[in-house]
């Protein structure tokens, strides 16, 4: 496909279609309404396409559950308060090992909060979010192109590991228009699924469930999930390193925050070419790039974690560093998006402070 100018939400929807998604279930909430609106139109052009504006986010996620159990690639999307409602279904799908893709275009919270871009749902996304002992894959795009690429990939990840995958964007990324090349539709047929329901014709009936009353069986199921999560950690962790080879101070940020950070770093390096700062941008928030962060200690002594929240991912950075290095945090919660200049000032202050401490 050619390069075209698209909204983040539209790019997400179109990439899903190209990945073989035939079902969308959702409930209106700002700032992601353009996504269901796009799907309402687009899915009518797809053979077997299903679009339902559900009566609630609870219903929508459970329709996804049903569609996934029936073998379809299904998508739902929402924004923070709606994602809280979807946690029930996400937990069930994690337990049932059903694939699904869920997009959260985050807004300010808690509660109704506001409709401005925010990164306040990191904990909810990366800690499972619902009840029970489980993980989901969380992908954090930083541009409209990456929204398209990661959404396309999300469906394969979901099917490969039979796991719900979340695209964690924010109001800024969703509303942003950028040139994008939508991935080409897959040529090869989708992988055969031997667990879905289709009517027990010529085979034993199948049961898709999460109820396991026997405690030993339940424990074994939990360990089975745990082993799957370990495998995902080994194989699927992704991050971007930018100018980190010689960096003494590394900025860690994801999504929109990472874009701002990149701009700030470019600006600072331009002003002072001796300034040894770089950016490490987690692309998968779960699994978290723990190893990459730890290995960066070979050059870096200081870390500057920037989030559009009051501090959530910073916990994972601290855990990754295991007490080594100095971790500084700069957070802007509530829907505030700082400018690269603002962020640059804050990074520079920390950088020169670090230099002064080192001299002493």
């Amino acid at each position, binding site marked *: 496909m050619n390069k075209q100018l698209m909204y983040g939400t539209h790019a997400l929807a179109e990439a899903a279609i190209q990945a073989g998604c*035939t079902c969308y279930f959702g409930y209106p909430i700002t700032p992601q309404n353009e996504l269901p609106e796009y799907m309402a139109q687009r899915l009518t052009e797809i053979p077997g396409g299903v679009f339902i504006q559900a009566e609630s986010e609870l219903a929508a996620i*459970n*329709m996804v559950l049903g569609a996934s159990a029936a073998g379809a690639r299904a998508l739902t999307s929402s924004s923070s308060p709606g994602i809280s409602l979807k946690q*029930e279904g996400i937990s069930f799908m994690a337990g049932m090992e059903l694939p699904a893709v869920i997009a959260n275009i985050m807004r300010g919270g808690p509660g109704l909060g506001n409709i401005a871009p925010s990164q306040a749902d990191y904990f909810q996304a990366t800690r499972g979010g619902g009840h029970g002992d489980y993980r989901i894959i969380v992908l954090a795009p930083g541009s409209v192109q990456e929204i398209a690429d990661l959404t396309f990939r999300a469906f394969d990840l979901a099917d490969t590991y039979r796991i719900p995958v979340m695209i964690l964007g924010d109001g800024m990324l969703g509303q942003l228009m950028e040139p994008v090349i939508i991935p080409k539709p897959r040529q090869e047929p989708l992988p055969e699924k031997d667990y879905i329901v289709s*009517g027990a014709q010529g085979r034993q*009936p199948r*049961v898709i469930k999460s109820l396991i009353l026997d405690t030993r069986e339940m424990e074994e199921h939990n360990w089975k999930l745990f082993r799957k999560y370990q495998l995902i950690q080994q194989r699927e962790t992704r991050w971007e390193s930018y100018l980190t080879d010689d960096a003494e101070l590394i900025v860690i940020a994801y999504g929109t925050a990472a874009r701002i950070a990149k701009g700030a770093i470019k600006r600072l390096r331009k002003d002072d070419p001796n300034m040894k700062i770089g950016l490490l941008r987690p692309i998968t928030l779960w699994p978290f790039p723990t190893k990459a962060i730890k290995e960066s200690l070979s050059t870096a002594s200081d870390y500057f974690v920037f989030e559009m929240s009051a501090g959530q991912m910073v916990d994972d950075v601290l855990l990754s560093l295991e007490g080594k290095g100095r971790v500084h945090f700069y957070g802007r919660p509530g829907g505030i998006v700082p400018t690269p200049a603002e962020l640059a000032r804050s990074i520079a202050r920390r950088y020169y402070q670090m230099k002064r401490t080192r001299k002493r």
Partner: protein
Amino acid sequence: MKRIYVRPQTLRPVPMHYCPGCGHSIIHRLIAEVLDEMKLREKAICVPPAGCAVLAYNYLDIDMVEAPHGRATAVATGIKRVRPANLVFSYQGDGDLAAIGTAEALHAANRGEQITVIFVNNAVYGMTGGQMAPTTLLGQKTTTSPFGRNVKTEGPPIKVCELLAGLGSSAYLERVAVNSPANVKKAKSAIAKAFTYQLRKAGFTLVEILSPCPTNWKMDPVAACRWIDEEMMTVFPLGVIKDLPC
């Protein structure tokens, strides 16, 4: 010699966990008989509820997808829209359908989803130990209405069929019971009719089944069957509530 009574092929030859006198085992058997007779076993997909009947997949030999409490009609919607050629039905209790899952049931009916709901109304929460249900009768004592259901604080029992009848896309709604041989036969016909309507794409279909719960009603099975006749049916009269020709 002519065989006149055999175990349906769709009903697994295993003992059931249900209490003595419980209606679930009868209803399971009726579903199995209908699926056998209509040759639908290999087409059927059931969505069992959270509650006593969650273990329906141990007894009915068909594809099953468990649903979170109350969400069976939403799950069934997702399945049916992906697989329109299959027979998709949910099996739900009164708490599941008329309390926590009211929104899902009402909207599935209003959209005219081509699914069937087997709605088991026993006027209490069974699995959790006999708490008040949305269909608990006025004055009926339960563990959470120890002085009897009070219309002023708990409202009257919800009549699901009558509630759904007003929605444009519900096609067939009938209330039956499984407390006597004659009623059991009528219940079976209603299930068969609902499945037939679904296959004809008539719209949303629901069969409400008044069913005894002797354990939580604290009655013996015979008294429980009598209580359905004498008390439940005065609030929930049997019969076809809605039948759109198809």
